[in-house]
Structure formats: structure tokens, C-alpha cells
């Protein structure tokens, strides 16, 4: 049936793409560095002389110039300028923009193909996790012994802060970047995202946000943790400015990506893809992206005010001049708690796909999952002050926030119900994604149960600011979200890379990760029960044994991730060629070729059922048919070949 010429084989004229032809990551780097140096030079000779804010202003100017310069160089603004100048893009320009005839170099360019963007995100996520993981190793090495002098207190605080933020950025984009871009549009039968250029923009903007984050180490380090509580953060050095520029830039990216996801799902679904036939992962991407649109702008606002406080002497957060640290804490957590679910919901959606496919069963309670995810998202915007139970701010609100926080366990419970309902009497095909699926269930149960202690004010008065909290949120975010995302990665790896993942090495990695993780964070729960504070460079020798155990566990955990990375890279390079549908799954991404052609489908899909018809009657086994007269269709067959 394959007779249509592939779009990517189109021969383009040598001028197609115009300015884009000359732009890539290198020109981005050159423009970024060039403009940054220029801005720095100008600032040095003007604002630097300001006694109070000179160096903060200089750093603010330099970093802003970097971000703008990089985006000029990579081509973020091309289309806008072209439109202003009256040069609309031709079809050829668009094809060039989508990467036609550029081979691998398109991965280093402002490429509008959602699959290229997804792959770029995937690589970026690996890089960020490696950086964050390396910083975690610094932390655990410092904490190997009670009075370690591996890192000075200043460097330790800087490492802790950037470990936190690097991981937060990485986890926010770990699913919404690679999979909501690569997989989700195919899942709904779309040719691309609704706004392909904004899609490319969301990626390159987040790339430009990373160097300022790492630059913090060279200008004194951030002392205030990833939460950057004011007024400590206002007191901090120019590193805090770099940090704020990173966040502001990152929020632009997340907002653009969120809007793009929402509009894509609203407007680009294939015929027959009704809301109640959408895969859970699509729902999760929409809910996660939509929640991000609520949460992240608060972060942008907060950080903008922070830059103003530091570089211009306003006093939003400085109590001595009429501001309030509590204001920062409120705005931060109004972002911060929904953000936890911005991280968590998309991986949980991915996990549901994995559980369904490998149990060979429909997801259990489809509509309740959607309701639960929506409920979690809705409640999550009303729970922020549970991070502030011990701050002394509005003690009378302890009750209401205890209520909303504990209510969240109802929809979260439904997600568990759906997970075990899907596993119940399933066929349990234990391929690698399923290993991570089981690990998620255990980790998230531990994270959930320990969460209820923290939601209780009298117990929180003991556990707040204590290693218990650290262990709790690593169980939910690393053990929960990141393990679910890893399940998703192993699941979609054949589709993204066109190769099968080496599951033997993957299983070695799994065991190292699973065991290393439990050892690391169970030891930290124990530290927390005993009363060890968080974020300390040195601790009382009474906590020595459990810290030693935790550090060893962390090394094993990191070794697991490295082995997994090896499995991914080596399989990507020379793994077995993947068939289009290695898992005999039903959703649309498995029913187009691998590698996925430009614009995804050679024949338009017509969706007739939800993608969970496992074990059902013949008519509901088929998720979609292809082409105008494609009425046939085997259960698990590939309809386009």
C-alpha cells in the first residue's frame, strides 16, 4: 500500500529556508556569546559603578544578552522578522524548516518537525540529568562522613541549590519534552504540533536557559537552595541573578510548550479521535501542560520581582524596607506545588500506557483516571501553604490547608486503583518498561504514605526541614515520576530511535537503580526520623552510619543510571532494528512506520475505538483504520504496510 512519495525525499531548491540555512547551534552560541560580551562591556562601563547593585546589574545585562543573542543566532525570531518585513514563508521554506534534506544536522538546527524537537529534548534531558546526578554525587560525597571538608559550606550550598533546580527543570521537561512532542501528536493522529515554530522555540529557549544556571558556580554560587527563600536570596550574590534569568527563560519555554500542547490536542486530532477515545497519556499531557500554564507564570513573576529587588533596590521581599519574605514563600509555592504535579502527571499518563500494553488489558477505570488527574491538578493549586505550616504565616490557615492537602490523596488513590485494576489478572508481559512500572508502584506508595505524615501539622512540626522531607520528595519525584518516565522511555524507545533497547543491560541497570534507590532514601527516612536537618554540609556524628549507607546507595543508584544510559546509547547506535509495533500495542504511534515519516502518516487514520481494546470483542480491538477504504485490519497488525 505504500506508494506515496515520502515528504523527506523532496528535493528543495538551494535557497529554501533562506536565513535558516545559515543558522545552527554554533551560530546561536556565537551570537549569544557575542551579545553577552557586548552587553557585559557596556554594563561594565555604565551600571557597574553603582555601589549597591553594580555587579548584579552587570550580570543581569550579560545574561539577558546571552539569552537574546542565542535565540537570534539559532533563528527563534526569523519568522517574526520575516512576517514584519512582508516575506511570508513558502512551502519550500517550511519543508526546509522541518528538516528536509539536512540529515543529522537538523538536530542542531531550529527544526520544526515535532519528532526532531522531541529527540532534541530527550538528549537535553539526559544532559541535565547527568549534570544534576553529578551534583548529587558531590552532595553524597560531602555527607559520607560527619565533618567532611570535601566541599566548603559555600560550595556545598551552591551544589545543593543547582542540583535542585537542574533536576526540577529536567523533570518538568522529561516527559512533556520528548514524549509529549514526539509521541503525543502521533497518538492523536496529527501531522505535527499546532505551532511547529513555537515548538522549536520552546526547545531552543530552554537550551539558552541552561548556561546561566551553570554560570552560577563561577560567580559565587547560589546560597539559598532551589527554593531561594527571600530575603536570603536577595542577600545572595550575582549568582542569584543568573538563577533568576534561567527561571524566567525556562518559564517562557514551558508556557509556549504548554499552549502548544493544549491547542494541538484541541484542534489537531484525527477524525474519530473523540475525547473519550484519547489515550491516557494525551490526557495527562494536556492536564500537565494546562496546569503548567497556571503554575509557571507565578514563577516568572516571582523571579522578575527578585531581579528587581537585587539589581534595582526595590523591596518586594525585603522586610527591612516594607517587603515580606512570606510574600516570596507564597508566590513561590503557588507555583511550587502545582509544579510537582506538572512533573508527575505526564509520567503517570505514560505509565498507564505501559501498564495497559504489558498487562494486555484495557486501562482500568479510564474515565476515573482522567477525573483523578484533573482533580489532582485542581486541588494542587489550593494546597501551596502546606509548605508553610511552620513559617508562622497565618497559623489559622493550617486547618484549611491540611484539608485540601489530605483531599489530594483521594484522586491520587484513584490513580493507584487504576494501576492495580489494570494489573489485576492481566497477562503481565515482563519486558523492561514493566520492570519500571512495578518499581513505580512501590516507590509511589512509599512516597504517598510518607506524604500523609507531612500533611499533618503536628507531625510536620517535627519533620519539616528535615531529611524525612528530602526522602519523601525523592520517593515521589525520582522514585515516582522519574521511574515512570523511564518506563515510558523504554516503552517508546523503539519508536523514537528505530532500534530495540538492549533489555539485558537494561535489566542490570534496573536492579542497580531499584536497589540503590531504596538504600539511599530509606536511609534518609531513618535520618529524618532521628531528626537530621536538611541542606547541611556537616552533621552530628550520631547520624554517621545512615549517611554512609545513604551515600553508598546513591553511588549504586548513579551507577544504575549510567548503565541505563549506556544501554540507551549503545542500542541507539547499533541495536536491532525495531519493527513498527514491537509491543503489539494499539495506539496510533505504533501503527505508522518506524522511523516515523515526516507528517507522521502516509494515510490518514480514522479512529473508531479507544486504544485499550485488549481482550475485547473483535470490533473494539481496533483503535483506528487507515486510508479511505481501509476497513480490514488484523488485531495487532500494522495497517500501513
Amino acid at each position, binding site marked *: 500500500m505504500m506508494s506515496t512519495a515520502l515528504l523527506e525525499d523532496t528535493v528543495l531548491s538551494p535557497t529554501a529556508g533562506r536565513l535558516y540555512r545559515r543558522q545552527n547551534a554554533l551560530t546561536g552560541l556565537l551570537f549569544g556569546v557575542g551579545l553577552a560580551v557586548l552587553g557585559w562591556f557596556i554594563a561594565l562601563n555604565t551600571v557597574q559603578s553603582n555601589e549597591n547593585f553594580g555587579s548584579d546589574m552587570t550580570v543581569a545585562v550579560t545574561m539577558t544578552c546571552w539569552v537574546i543573542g542565542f535565540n537570534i543566532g539559532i533563528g527563534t525570531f526569523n519568522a517574526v522578522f520575516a512576517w514584519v518585513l512582508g516575506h511570508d514563508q513558502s512551502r519550500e521554506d517550511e519543508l526546509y524548516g522541518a528538516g528536509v534534506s539536512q540529515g543529522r544536522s537538523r538536530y542542531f538546527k531550529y527544526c520544526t518537525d515535532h519528532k526532531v524537537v522531541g529527540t532534541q529534548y530527550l538528549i537535553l534531558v539526559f544532559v541535565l540529568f547527568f549534570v544534576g546526578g553529578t551534583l548529587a554525587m558531590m552532595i553524597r560525597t560531602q555527607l559520607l562522613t560527619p565533618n567532611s571538608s570535601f566541599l566548603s559550606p559555600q560550595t556545598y550550598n551552591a551544589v545543593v541549590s543547582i542540583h535542585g533546580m537542574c533536576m526540577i527543570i529536567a523533570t518538568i521537561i522529561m516527559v512533556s519534552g520528548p514524549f509529549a512532542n514526539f509521541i503525543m501528536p502521533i497518538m492523536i493522529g496529527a501531522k505535527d504540533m499546532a505551532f511547529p515554530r513555537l515548538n522549536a522555540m520552546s526547545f531552543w529557549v530552554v537550551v539558552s536557559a541552561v548556561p546561566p544556571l551553570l554560570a552560577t558556580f563561577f560567580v559565587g554560587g547560589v*546560597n539559598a537552595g532551589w527554593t531561594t*527563600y527571600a530575603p536570603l536570596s536577595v542577600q545572595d550574590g550575582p549568582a542569584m541573578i543568573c538563577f533568576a534569568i534561567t527561571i524566567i527563560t525556562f518559564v517562557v519555554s514551558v508556557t509556549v510548550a504548554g499552549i502548544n500542547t493544549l491547542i494541538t490536542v484541541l484542534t489537531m486530532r484525527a477524525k474519530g479521535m473523540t475525547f473519550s477515545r484519547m489515550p491516557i497519556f494525551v490526557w495527562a499531557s494536556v492536564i500537565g501542560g494546562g496546569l503548567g500554564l497556571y503554575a509557571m507564570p507565578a514563577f516568572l513573576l516571582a523571579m522578575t520581582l527578585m531581579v528587581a529587588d537585587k539589581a534595582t533596590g526595590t523591596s518586594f521581599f525585603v522586610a527591612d524596607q516594607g517587603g515580606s519574605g*512570606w510574600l516570596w514563600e507564597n508566590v513561590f509555592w503557588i507555583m511550587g506545588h502545582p509544579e510537582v504535579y506538572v512533573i508527575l502527571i505526564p509520567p503517570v499518563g505514560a505509565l498507564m500506557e505501559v501498564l495497559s500494553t504489558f498487562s494486555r488489558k484495557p486501562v482500568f477505570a*479510564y474515565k476515573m483516571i482522567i477525573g483523578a488527574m484533573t482533580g489532582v491538578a485542581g486541588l494542587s493549586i489550593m494546597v501551596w501553604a502546606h509548605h508553610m505550616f511552620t513559617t*508562622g504565616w497565618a497559623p489559622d490557615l493550617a486547618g484549611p490547608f491540611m484539608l485540601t492537602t489530605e483531599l489530594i490523596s483521594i484522586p491520587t488513590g484513584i490513580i493507584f486503583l487504576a494501576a492495580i485494576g489494570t*494489573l489485576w*489478572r492481566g497477562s503481565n508481559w515482563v*519486558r523492561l518498561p514493566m520492570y519500571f512500572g512495578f518499581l513505580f508502584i512501590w516507590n509511589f506508595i512509599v512516597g504517598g504514605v510518607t506524604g500523609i505524615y507531612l500533611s499533618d501539622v503536628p507531625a510536620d512540626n517535627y519533620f519539616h526541614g*528535615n531529611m524525612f522531607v528530602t526522602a519523601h520528595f525523592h520517593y515521589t519525584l525520582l522514585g515516582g515520576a522519574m521511574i515512570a518516565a523511564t518506563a515510558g522511555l523504554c516503552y517508546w524507545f523503539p519508536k523514537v530511535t528505530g532500534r530495540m533497547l538492549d533489555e539485558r543491560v537494561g535489566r542490570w541497570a534496573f536492579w542497580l537503580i531499584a536497589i540503590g534507590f531504596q538504600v539511599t532514601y530509606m536511609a534518609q527516612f531513618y535520618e529524618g526520623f532521628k531528626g537530621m536537618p536538611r541542606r547541611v554540609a556537616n552533621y552530628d556524628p550520631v547520624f554517621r552510619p545512615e549517611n554512609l549507607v545513604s551515600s553508598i546507595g546513591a553511588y549504586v543508584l548513579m551507577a544504575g543510571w549510567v548503565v541505563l544510559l549506556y544501554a540507551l546509547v549503545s542500542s541507539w547506535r547499533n541495536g536491532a532494528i525495531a519493527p513498527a509495533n514491537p509491543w503489539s500495542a494499539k495506539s496510533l504511534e505504533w501503527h505508522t512506520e518506524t522511523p516515523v515519516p515526516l507528517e507522521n502518516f502516509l494515510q490518514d487514520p480514522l479512529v473508531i475505538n479507544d486504544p485499550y481494546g485488549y481482550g475485547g470483542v473483535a470490533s473494539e480491538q481496533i483503535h483506528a483504520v487507515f486510508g479511505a477504504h481501509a476497513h480490514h485490519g488484523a488485531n495487532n497488525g500494522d495497517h500501513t504496510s
Partner: protein
Amino acid sequence: MSSNQLHNDDSILEDLAPEVDRDLHSKHVRGTALLWLIMTVGGVLCGIYLTPRLMPHMFAKEGRDAVLTVQVFTVVAAPVAALVCAVALYSLLHTRHRASLEHPPKDGKPLRGNALASGAWLIVSTLLVVFLLFWGLTEWSAQQVVHADSLTVNVVGNQWVWDFEIPAQKVRLEGDKSLIITKAISMSQLNLPIDVPVTFNVTSKDVTHGFWPVNLGIQVDANPRATTTVHATPDRLGKFVVRCSQLCGLNHAYMYTEANIVSDSTFEAWVAGGATKPIGSLIAKGAA
């Protein structure tokens, strides 16, 4: 294909309902129930016996409330957590497809939902949440009761030192004895008499700190230009650590000091001696 050919979820549910009912009496249910029972018992025992041993001895009711909450919440959560783990473990134990990993096994039962299971789950989890809330609010409001003649202690957070002050006041010690403090006492350690309710007025001279007298089980932030208040009644003799629980910059790790809970007589003697000597030396004298 037109829509009337499509099944909707509800009709499928109805089709399967009898089978679901039969499921509930099958060996799978019995196996899972056994696992659930074992895990629940394990969880409950952990909650009752293990968790209090993980936590330090508390010096006030507030701290013991925290320990009790951990115990109760573990016990309450155990059946739910055990159910999730039991189903997952059962499904793992019944994996029969190792031999043919290359190909998917035959499809499982198409259970798309079960009103009974979902409804029961919702009701149970809602009841549990109501219980958690009731428990938390009861404990919390009991902790909010302020004693009329409590000892006032001013706590000041500085980057990276705590300092304490007992302002001039009349302190009612146990047995209606009273001790008049005529001149404010400044302390680098937190010295308190036993069984006297204490009100801590907490503030900061620079950035936000977290006042955490660990074994009292209370915590409140020290904010610049604001005074926050927290109460506790230490009821055990001995010493423990007062920590900063809110990252406060360079030497946050070292921002801690000691609290000494001493007997009335020791406290009186210490105050009478001008409150300059380390209180520890007085305890030693009393013992000798």
C-alpha cells in the same frame, strides 16, 4: 464506520458484570487477600512498634503527638498500601510468560472498570481522609491552647547563631511557687525549667531562620521584622539540640545550640547566681 457500530464503555461493563462477580470468589482473590493480610499485619506492627523506636525521646507533649501521629497514620495507611502492593505482587508472582518474551502473551481480561471496586475504594479513601483530618485538627487545636502564665522566652535568629532572652517577668513554677526575674537574662543556650509552659517569641535579625527545638516537636520560622509564636511545655529533664531548619546561608549547618531542661531548684539557683554560669555546672553540683 458510523458511531452506532461502536461499543460504549457502559455496555461492555454490563456484559462483563457476571464474570466480575465470579472473579471475586476465585483463587486469585484468595491469593491476593492472603498477601494483603500478611502485608497489612506487617504494616500495622511496623506502625505500632517500629516507628516510635526510630524517633528520639520527646521532651514535650507536642513531640509525643508527632510520634503518635506517625504510629496512627502508619496503621491507618497500612491496609491501603498493602492492597496496592498485594495486587502488584500477585500479578508479578503470576507472570507465566518468561519463556516467550519476544511475543506478547494472549490478552488479559478486558476489565474496564468495576463500579463496586471503584465505589468502595472512593468511600474508604474518603473516610480515611476524614479521619486523618479529624485527627490532625484535634491534635492541632489542642496544641493551640495558650497557658495564661507561661514563661516568655524571646528567640532571635542571627546568621548563624541563636540567642535567647528571658525578659524580666514573674515565672510561676510548679506548686505555685513563683520566681521573679528582675533583669532580662541573655543566653546562648536554651535553659528552661521543667513543667513550666513556655511561649517562644521568635524573630530574626537578618534572613529567615527556622527555630526547631528538635525534641520538643515544635517548629516555627524566625522572620525579620515579624514575631512568630510557638508554645510547648518541656516535661523531661535533660538536654537536646536546637536547630535552624530553614536554609539561612553560609554556616546554616552550624546554626544550632543546646537546650537544657532543668529542675525548678536548679533553675532558681542559676537565676539567683546571675544566670552567667553554664547551667550544666549547676546540675553537676546538685548531683554531687
